[in-house]
């Protein structure tokens, strides 16, 4: 079997004096969409920061595409979209994309292609500060897509978007996965989870499940993932109290 895209071993992270990730272990397969789901504050962003190598970790290892997370070789191969859009609000859409393209030596043609992929060609010359929230999210996404990364780490990419746009983005994520890109994305909304190939359910800095959406439903004998998550959490609480 091909080595995992992301291998996390005994990962412990402390932030602000509190332990935020507790001894995490997981292998994330290549070419799949893996959804990291869990309530706000459970540690999704922190785990993603570990994967892209900007989080100081206390112990444990994170291996990404065969190299230590954050190593120089990975910076061309991994794309990261932060939770709040991190683009230059005082530049136009095209200027933002061109700048990020220049960091990777990507062509002008690639800039145009990416811009049309996220349907922003019409707003190319608009300042980002004048865009709607959904448009800003797409600019931020486009800045990560521009380098054609092998691994795409997306922190809550569809939060606050309208349903049409959300559907479009999911279609795009699936096209990327079909072309071999590994996608790791997070959400605190459970109904997003059905679109993922694989789910990692997280709570208070630990995983409570790692399986396909269908397996989770049948395992918990529930009809939707929201109930499945609640069932898994209460199971765990019961067994801890027992």
């Amino acid at each position, binding site marked *: 079997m091909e080595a995992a895209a992301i291998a996390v071993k005994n990962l412990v992270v402390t*932030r*602000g004096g509190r332990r935020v990730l507790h001894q995490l272990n997981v292998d994330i397969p290549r070419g799949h969409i893996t959804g990291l789901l869990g309530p706000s504050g459970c540690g999704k962003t922190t785990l993603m920061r570990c994967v*892209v*190598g*900007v*989080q*100081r*970790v206390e112990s444990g290892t994170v291996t990404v595409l065969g190299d230590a997370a*954050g190593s*120089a070789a990975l*910076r*061309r191969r*991994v794309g*990261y979209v*932060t939770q*709040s*859009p*991190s*683009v*230059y*609000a*005082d*530049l136009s859409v095209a*200027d933002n994309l061109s*700048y*990020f393209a*220049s*960091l*990777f*030596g990507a062509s002008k043609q690639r800039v145009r292609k990416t811009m049309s992929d996220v349907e922003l060609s019409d707003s190319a010359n608009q*300042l980002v500060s004048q865009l709607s929230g959904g448009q800003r999210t797409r600019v931020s996404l486009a*800045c990560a897509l521009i*380098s054609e990364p092998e691994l795409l780490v997306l922190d809550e990419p569809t939060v606050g978007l309208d349903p049409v746009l959300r559907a479009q983005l999911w279609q795009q994520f699936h096209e990327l996965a079909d072309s071999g890109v590994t996608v790791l994305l997070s959400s605190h909304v459970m109904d997003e989870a059905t679109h993922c190939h694989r789910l990692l359910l997280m709570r208070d800095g630990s995983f409570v499940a790692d399986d396909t959406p269908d397996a989770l439903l049948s395992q918990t004998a529930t009809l939707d993932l929201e109930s499945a998550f609640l069932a898994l959490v209460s199971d765990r609480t019961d067994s801890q109290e027992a």
Partner: protein
Amino acid sequence: MSLRIATMTVWRVLNQLRRDRRTVALLLIMPSVLMTLLRYVFDGSPMVFDHIGVTLLGIFPFIVMFLVTSVAMLRERTSGTLERLLTTPISKLDLLVGYGTAFALVAAVQTLLTCATTLWLLDLHVCGNLSFVIGISVADAVLGAALGLLVSAFAATEFQAVQFMPAIVLPQLLLCGLFAPRDSMASWLDAASSLMPLSYVVEALSEVARHAEATAILWRDLGIVVGLIGVCLVLAAVTLRRKTP
């Protein structure tokens, strides 16, 4: 380091600045306006204006570039773009040199305007070569920018960044020789002032003001200023962490 990435960063920073018309106007015009004000404050004593004016040619760009650069870099950090950049192939030095160069270019334009106003319109008298005045002022502006980049690593908010101005620049202003000659200060203050970058800028400028030819002290001071720019940039690169808590 990649020349391409650093150059594109210069463009990007200038492009951002260009959209902020009011800041550009203030940056370019303010020092000239203040110099004009000063000229008429010392209307009756042109000798005093000659002395203070040439010193201020070194002080204005330093303060302005320090402030602007530290706030710009802090903005990069708080907007999340810094975190994102550090996951891309850009090196820390590319980013810092990009910022430093962008603001150095702005500083060069600012300095040319201020020098033009002061030397020709306001008749400030210097004995030495004008190109030295301009060269020192630009080096000094870059020093301000480099120090701003370094200091912004220690500021969590824009309030803090602005407070670094009185904390780091005002002591240098007091001790640089503008208010009293350095050798007339208490000896411990004189010693302290010789550790401060601005002292060398002011000394170099007053050498140009008093001597027709470039002096050894002038060259030494200019060397120190250029060296300090390098030291600040390297320290800024060291304090800029890819991994944060």
